[in-house]
């Protein structure tokens, strides 16, 4: 999806409005922008900096500080492998290894046809079901190595 400068402006404007054009709402503005655009393109950050009249360093600093933000396009499906303590003691590392091997990517990366993005999260609070893998917000609990492949198959 390539947007013209004007299209991008039109997308960002209502987001800023919803957040009262308030620089204090920067994290929220970036979240809404990412939801709208899938990631945080450079031009979007520049637009937010101009419209809110805050330094670009602040926008870029916040966007690179928080884990929820991606400055690169992401895959169609978001895979999160929980590395919380409860999942760790139940073998989350092995599950992550398997996902990495299946997709040939490391956390923070996309696979080459942008089907999946992989990331790790530190505890989603569903510890009873560890180890957990979340795909597009759906939880797959009590994961085992041999359940990884069938799970990923469900997502095109």
């Amino acid at each position, binding site marked *: 999806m390539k947007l013209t400068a004007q299209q991008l402006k039109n997308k960002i404007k209502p987001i800023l409005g919803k957040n009262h054009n308030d620089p204090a709402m920067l994290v*929220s503005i970036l979240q809404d922008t990412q939801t709208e655009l899938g990631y945080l393109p450079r031009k979007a950050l520049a637009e937010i900096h101009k419209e809110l009249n805050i330094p670009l360093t602040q926008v870029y600093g*916040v966007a690179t500080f*928080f884990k*929820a933000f991606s400055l690169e396009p992401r895959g169609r499906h978001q895979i999160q492998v929980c590395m919380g303590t409860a999942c760790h003691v*139940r073998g989350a590392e092995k599950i992550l290894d398997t996902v990495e091997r299946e997709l040939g990517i490391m956390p923070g990366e996309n696979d080459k046809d942008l089907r999946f993005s992989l990331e790790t999260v*530190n505890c989603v609070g569903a*510890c009873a079901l560890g180890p957990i893998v979340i795909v597009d917000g759906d*939880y797959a609990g009590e994961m085992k*190595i041999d359940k990884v492949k069938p799970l990923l198959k469900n997502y095109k």
Partner: protein
Amino acid sequence: MKRLSSLKELAGLRQSIATVRDTKKQVVNICGGTGCIALGANDVIKAFNEEIAARGLQDKVDVRVSGCPGFCERGSILTIEPQNIFYQRVRRKDVAELVQATLIDGKTVERLLYPDLTTGKKVIREAEVPFYTKQKRVLLAHSSRIDPQSIEDYLYFGGYAALSKALSAMKPEHIIDEMKASGLRGRGGGGFPTGRKWETTRHAHGDIKYVICNCDEGDPGAFMDRSLMEGNPHSVLEGMIIGAYAIGAHEGYIYVRNEYPLAVKNARIAIEQAEEYGLLGDNILGSGFNFHVKISRGGGAFVCGESTALMASLEGEVGEPRAKYVHTSEKGLWDRPSNLNNVETWANVPQIINNGAKWFAGIGTAGSKGTKIFSLVGKVRNTGLVEVPMGITLREIIFDIGGGIPGNKKFKAVQTGGPSGGFIPENLLDLQVDFDELTRVGSMMGSGAMIVMDESNCMVDMAKYFVTFLMGELCGKCLPCREGMKQLHYLLTRVTGGLGTIEDIALIESLCSTMWDTSLCGLGYSAPNPVMTSLKYFREEWDAHIDEKRCPAKVCKPLITYNIMANCPNCGLCVKACPVQAITPRGKKEPVVLDQVKCTRCGSCFDVCRLDAVLVK
């Protein structure tokens, strides 16, 4: 919906909710918490609605989605009233049978009842399940009965009565005195006396003051704040309104972790509903008191659980902590007096106002009052949330409530307080759990995560796990935390890799001491706790890694090998499972051969073998 403009109107509304509520109807309360949803609760809810509609039972049965009762291990869980039957591990396919047998024929479905782990006897009532019998559920009492998205439900169970009492019969000073007398200490980890914090903020200079609810629950393994915010958001909100009234604040923030979408949603709904009823906003219940609450979603940073980092984030800045030599109750958000409490602390407030400080102070130990919610996770049979009186022993929590260790394994340690806490060994299991006792043994209360470990967990690896966790989460502002954590991780990797020396241990100890004394915020200065308690209580495991290059728990990859035993019948499962083709069949009924050079010690062969023919050495 009519805005209430007096206490009388609130009482009237409560009355009318009680009258319209059809108590003759059967009710299916299904847990809609994240844990149960992960196990398919949404399917179960859908199936119940469909089945009931198909059989035309809408007038006789209500299906209600409730908050989390805490017994996540047994999800999806539900109770049926008025029969008061507790069903567990319910799946979509069980629904038709439950509707026919229980809702129509009035019988219990034996196979979905909870089996007592020791006797195997089936338990019908929720209250008789051993997981619940030793608990003292105050904050979680209504979780399995209340629809968190319905303010009427909360009102039906006595909600906003404390606010009513506070506004009508108590002066702000009186409320603060009550909080002080109750002995409530902050549930977010620090354990600071709540009443004193409120008092300082009330007396701080400035017309504009803030109250903040910290729901940036980042401790891995802790989910009580998530559960309260998802399952009973009005109780938190009511606490905040009372707090704001006592402190003299008119604006509040709820800072919720990005990873908790349902908590964000339910908190948002709660705020809207409370505003519509005039329980929040301008001139609350006609009292002249104004209070507005906004929600702020976190951006995914553990360090933002630290109060000053959270406030920086609320201001739209990078979530970096600052020194707290001047307290946030004097200079917090936008340099104004700010009172930050954690979700569970706020939820305690209505209870204390309703039942009195004396009642609250009657629960617990000398220095720690009330109940505390723990999340009991890891190698324990009954995973879930448990609410217990302060002073209960670790043994009671883990063995009586938690049902002990699964798979006939031996208990090794329990870790409390998340990455800031420490490991507690078996000989301290009779420790009475409260703020001071946990600190005394080198751990801490923290937010209340309790992670149980058995003999198959390596304590050096666990220390490394927490350091790795923090290395990924620290903000990077101060030198000892940023550079220290990096080096601590390096040293621990040496030890788990069999390269550690006795000098490394000495260096770890002095590095920890510097991080302890000189780090800027709690993340850095408590980071040594897991490492130091692991060293203190499990030194022999460290020695095995260093002196014998051996990992006794067989966890640390560089120190173990997988071996195929003589009883391997060449079934082929491991050959298929091996991701690096390190296993080759030799011939019919002959044990397969494992190439140790190719082997990455991933453990796949061990996990798939059904005949214990793979041995870890």
